[in-house]
């Protein structure tokens, strides 16, 4: 029992945390390789990112400041309850600001603000195996990774080009890590892929599939592509209607019954910080006047 009272520190018992911690160190030593681990039941449904929650639980120290985002937003039910969970069980401070955080747990986005050394980004991963959709058998995908046999993956992507004139994969776009392992970046938009070469530590937890993997800072992460069809991160052809940013990932939002639409940064903290700094988008003035 610790000072956190009725709970173990960060909820998990010490033996479970040790097992996860050992897996995390192996993951960092072999970037992009999926380390098996014995996932535990968590007091939340699988869809809520129990893999990420377990990784966060194994990493937190009481001095941490935790940010939790769900598709870029800090205020969804999922994000709020995970934040509260660690406030209660680990006694950590929480924040919505990327710059103020030391650990960020994320579902489906990388913050727009570049991470700095010492920050940790924990991803909730639903399907860790990038080869699963071409090979359902675990024994086979494991063999393919062992032999770095990724030809089928390239064939699949190229078939996409033949059929659609472009690679249609917009989320969970596969990457090659240090020229060795092909890795699933979790369902982030491919717009975020270039950010994976970063100063922060990236840790990936898949609860249902019981896999942990990791990227140390400055690891080379290359989105799979072809000489004649180079990787294109794709961005909507609009500035943010709230903050005017032209370099962020945007959500399309319906704003009235007449079908009016606006484009706004998916990263709410980034958008808020830009507006606080005086940046204005097309529709920001009306909002401020309201």
């Amino acid at each position: 029992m610790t000072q956190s009272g009725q709970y173990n520190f960060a909820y998990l018992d010490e033996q479970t945390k040790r097992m996860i911690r050992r897996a995390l160190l192996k993951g960092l030593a072999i970037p992009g390789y999926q380390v098996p681990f014995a996932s535990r039941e968590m007091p939340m449904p699988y869809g809520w990112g129990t893999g990420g929650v377990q990784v966060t639980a194994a990493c937190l120290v009481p001095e941490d400041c935790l940010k939790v985002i769900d598709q870029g937003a800090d205020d969804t039910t999922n994000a709020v309850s995970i934040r509260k969970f660690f406030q209660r069980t680990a006694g950590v401070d929480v924040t919505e600001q990327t710059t103020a955080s030391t650990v960020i747990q994320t579902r489906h986005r990388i913050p727009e603000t570049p991470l700095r050394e010492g920050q940790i980004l924990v991803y909730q991963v639903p399907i860790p195996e990038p080869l699963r959709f071409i090979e359902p058998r675990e024994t086979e995908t494991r063999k393919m990774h062992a032999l770095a046999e990724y030809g089928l993956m390239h064939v699949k992507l190229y078939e996409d080009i033949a059929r659609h004139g472009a690679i249609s994969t917009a989320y969970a776009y596969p990457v090659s890590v240090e020229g060795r392992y092909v890795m699933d970046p979790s369902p982030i938009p491919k717009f975020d892929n270039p950010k994976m070469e970063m100063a922060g530590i990236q840790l990936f937890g898949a609860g249902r599939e019981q896999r942990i993997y990791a990227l140390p800072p400055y690891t080379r992460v290359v989105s799979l592509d072809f000489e004649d069809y180079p990787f294109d991160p794709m961005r909507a052809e609009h500035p943010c209607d709230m903050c005017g940013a032209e370099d962020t990932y945007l959500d399309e939002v319906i704003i009235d019954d007449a079908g009016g639409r606006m484009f706004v940064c998916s990263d709410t903290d980034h958008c808020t910080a830009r507006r606080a700094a005086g940046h204005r988008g097309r529709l920001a003035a009306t909002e401020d006047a309201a």
Partner: protein
Amino acid sequence: MSTIAAMKGGFNDPAVDAAHGFRALLNAMAMPGAINDVTGAVPVAPLSVAAGVAILTLCDPETPVYLAPSHDTDAVRDWITFHTGAPFVGPSHAAFAIGTWEALMPLDQFPIGTPEYPDRSTTLIVEMDALAQTGATLRGPGIRETAQLNLPDAGAMADNAALFPLGVDFILTAGAQVAALPRSTKIGER
């Protein structure tokens, strides 16, 4: 029997001390060459504080431990048994191996994982006199451009890195400091 000595020197607040110990180890493994301070363990000699923290943070009944001759004493065995319950094994079955570099040799007696499961390898906790950011030049994941660290044997460690994704990983300990050299780090002369 050294039972009393064996019972002392563990973490005062096991969950929180282990959390701090792990964060230091995580940063060390994520940023090869970086030297991190640790605290919380007061192990029996000749174990360093840093080796003690690594053992208390990572070892338990699920992790067979090999003690190299430099560290294979009754006192060390009693201390590790009391605080972690880890079983002692020979090098070929070790999840963790502890000792000075010379005592841990030869390197090829440790598991390096399999092509399907490269994680099934030994992590060596190498006790050193001191850690310093001088000597061999390190490149690779976790390192912005280059880093430097006084490796005990750059040649043997470079040979290990050449096995990637197989190989062993090193946790380097001296006093209350820890650094790491994962198999992914490429080692150059200077």
